[in-house]
């Protein structure tokens, strides 16, 4: 009996230790990034950073994982959205990267330009990761060839002010600008929970509780993120105007608003920050989309999805052990440890039958089962 109690305590301790170790494991990919096919991340995940020095070895992969962030799109470019969209691959291949002497990866813009040039007159499949719910999608961009006499001049003198990939664009402008940016940067958003000062700056500026997310601030002051950053900026702008960029999940649009911060340095609303308050997935309703196609008058197409239902973070609902990836690799090691202990000495055949039953998702129809 004493041995059972001792083993029980040991199992609990092991379980807690494993859970803590996993929660602190920086190599675990953030659930928001797991929609990206692993092959597109392989170049960065197997970055030579690990081999360079021990000090850098423990860099959190979720903080360094990067893509070509769309930072500007032309008004005629409808396929991409600035702020939210990141290019993470071309034709299901990772973004070509080169490593510097410190082992950090940077995009190989010469190679990227070559990819566009090679696809002149065709369409190119561009793999996009979106910060709206951490979703992955493919866009097919038509690459239209330039006239041969209209090629860009490649300057012989290196000009810092106008970065060039060194390769002439043989295609017409695609209408977007990119910058190599960590994916995590797009999750630095502040969810408006409620307005708590009547006629305060938030209410006067028309901030809508639950629907609105502050995604940016004038001059990119929110770029570094942090739970208290918005509060600090607002406080520092007491008696001044502040331009905020606000995403509305119902209309699926971003709008700039100007708030006048009073002498108290308060915005007049409560905000949520962190995993549960990231921007949710946008789902398009087919009926509304059809209606929009018939009518010229734009109507709100997207149907908002609650962040809780759109994305259930495993870290908040359960210990990270029983995630799908882990359960595949270590099937039944951790969660079944206690069951195994209590089932010690029992009839193995009944356990095997039970596990076989649990593997079956749904019982087959009676007719089918009889025919089988």
């Amino acid at each position: 009996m004493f041995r059972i109690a001792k083993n029980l305590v040991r199992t609990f301790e092991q379980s807690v230790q494993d859970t803590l170790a996993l929660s602190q494991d920086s190599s675990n990919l953030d659930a928001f990034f797991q929609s990206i096919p692993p092959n597109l991340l392989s170049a960065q995940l197997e970055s030579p950073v690990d081999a360079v020095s021990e000090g850098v070895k423990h860099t959190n992969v979720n903080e360094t994982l990067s893509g070509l962030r769309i930072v500007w799109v032309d008004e005629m470019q409808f396929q991409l959205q600035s702020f939210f969209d990141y290019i993470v691959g071309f034709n299901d291949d990772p973004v070509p990267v080169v490593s510097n002497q410190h082992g950090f990866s940077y995009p190989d813009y010469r190679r990227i330009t070559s990819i566009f040039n090679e696809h002149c007159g065709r369409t190119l499949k561009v793999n996009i990761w979106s910060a709206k719910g951490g979703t992955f999608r493919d866009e097919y961009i038509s690459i239209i060839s330039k006239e041969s006499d209209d090629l860009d001049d490649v300057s012989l003198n290196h000009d810092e002010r106008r970065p060039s990939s060194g390769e002439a664009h043989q295609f017409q402008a695609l209408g977007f600008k990119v910058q190599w940016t960590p994916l995590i940067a797009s999750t630095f958003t502040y969810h408006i929970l409620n307005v708590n000062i009547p006629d305060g700056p938030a209410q006067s500026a028309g901030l809508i509780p639950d629907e609105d997310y502050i995604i940016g601030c004038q001059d990119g002051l929110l770029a570094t993120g942090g739970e208290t950053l918005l509060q600090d900026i607002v406080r520092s702008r007491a008696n001044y105007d502040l331009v905020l960029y606000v995403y509305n999940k119902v209309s699926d649009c971003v709008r700039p608003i100007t708030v006048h911060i009073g002498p108290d340095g308060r915005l007049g609303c409560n905000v949520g920050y962190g995993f549960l308050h990231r921007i949710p997935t946008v789902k398009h309703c087919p009926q509304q989309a059809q209606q929009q196609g018939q009518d010229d008058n734009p109507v709100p197409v997207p149907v908002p999805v609650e962040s809780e239902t759109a994305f259930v973070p495993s870290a908040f609902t359960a210990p990270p052990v029983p995630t799908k990836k882990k359960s595949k690799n270590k099937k039944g090691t951790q969660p079944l440890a206690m069951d195994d202990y209590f089932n010690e000495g029992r009839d193995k055949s009944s356990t095997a039958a039970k596990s076989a039953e649990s593997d079956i998702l749904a019982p087959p129809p009676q007719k089918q089962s009889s025919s089988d």
Partner: protein
Amino acid sequence: NMEVDRVMLNKWRQWNVDMTTWRSIGSGPIMEF
């Protein structure tokens, strides 16, 4: 008020934020394609 907000919000549906002048934690230049 919420109805007024809807009309106002719909005006922004095709609008994209320009981040080229923002401070960024991104690295390297901004490239145009």
